[in-house]
């Protein structure tokens, strides 16, 4: 597929922040639109359960 990296370098960033909130906030300080994901380990962090969930969804 054609690289979309050129678009990233020219279009304004609209970010999804997943994890440490400070990363998103630093982007917001630069007037970047940030969408926050309120992340926690899926399925209580149980890897087998996560794999099972991923297969089902």
């Amino acid at each position: 597929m054609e690289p979309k990296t050129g678009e990233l370098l020219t279009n304004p960033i609209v970010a999804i922040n997943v994890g440490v909130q400070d990363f998103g906030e630093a982007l917001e300080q630069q007037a970047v639109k940030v969408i926050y994901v309120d992340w926690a380990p899926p399925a209580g962090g149980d890897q087998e359960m996560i794999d099972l969930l991923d297969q089902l969804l």
Partner: protein
Amino acid sequence: MASGFVIRKNEYYDSVFLMRIAKTLNEEPGVQQSAVVMATDANKKLLSDIGITASSVDQSGPNDLVVAVVSENPAVVEQVLATLDQRLQSFSKPTRPASYRSIDEAALSNTDTNLAVISVPGEFAAREARKALERGNHVFLFSNNVPLDEEIELKQIAQRRGLLVMGPDCGTGIINGIGIGFANIVRRGPVGVVGASGTGLQEFTSLVHQAGSGISHAIGTGSRDLLDAVGGITTLMGFDALESDPTTRVIAIISKPAQPETLQRLMERIQKSSKPVIACFLGLERHLAGYGPNFSQVQSIDEAVELALYHAAQKSKLVVREEADMERLAEREINAWAPQQRYLRGLFAGGTFCYQSQQVLRATGIPVYSNSPLDKRYHLENPDISLENSLIDLGDDIYTQGIPHPMIYAVQRRKRIAVEAADPEVAILLLDFILGYIASPDPAGDLLDAIQDAKETAAMRGANLTVVASICGTDKDPQDYDRQKKVLEQVGVHVFPSNTQAARFCAKLILAAQGARHGT
């Protein structure tokens, strides 16, 4: 010794938030040790190492918060744990009304997103990155400890979709003037850079800014991109993007050396470049020649900056300290050393600075030990015990298990400064201070009293501890570059504009002292 702990089931907090709470606990009088962690397997081991074992801890998981305190005084343990709610509340930020439960949900409701910034624990990171790619987003992946096979898979998926994966273990990036992760605030300009080295990119971009020029884009690739197993996928895609980008006039590559096949592929790509390319492969002794008129190889980040400014036709120059000024300074410092003082100890927050300093010293014939050695013969068996000249990367995994990186949390470096200052053979302490987004709000302030104590310890035995430092940052950074420099200079630290220059000054001191001892 008394200890106690509290478990909060299903209360997940990110690592930086936990670090802030941990810092307040450590500052409480009477607290010997503390831990504020999510109950992952690695953290449960950490808890057991400080004597916290219980079946309730064993039964906890990565979604459960554990706060533990160790003190000689049982009342301190009780009192500190009783204030936990207050502490959690005082650092909590208001819940964002538009928070989503997953990347899928976020991307479906916001069709204009183009970049996912992911910093969840390494074992979960690839899963999130995969989802972001499937939704058509580029990825900035800060998380470390992502398995190599998952990195390869992610980058191959991304490549097929024409998307960029910066990371895993990617500390910094600047895209279109926007700093991502640990980035310094720099002006826009004609210099583009791609690289596997986080603090290396920060130093390069800051020095270009300080020289009066600017950065088009700085693309981080993650520390393992140039391994043959990964094949430089992000580096090559980043390079292509910079070559096509009309605002980029010159491209720099800052990295540890690539593995052979990947180096070959990268050099073949560079040979075809229509723009000047400057490669700084730190630690690579091989001279790369025959790759066309647009290619230059340099040995240090400073040289990369100088050459980039030249190719970008900028009249500006790298900021340097005057040679005569350095000579005077060196003479004054050495004359004040006690007879047994001879060794350098470097304590770094930036891995690239540890690595580059070794290279500078090696080039002058000074052998250096390290926990992250340039030359395997000088690997420190025990990273906690320095030998002769030693440079320690305190951002190494062994120092960051359950503890935030030294760029945001100085506790490890403070302790180590005291250890080194107690050694009568130590003459020089070399430090780095890293400014910018996410980094500590006051990196100099975090170490100031530790530096003062170290100098006093040396003075008490009639010695002079020379403290040399470089600041990586710009006048636009939130920490105020000039103030950081001033407070360090006020306690007698010799501050240099770059790590290369600071390391060269250390080499000058060591060689001059050797010469004086041998009567030359």
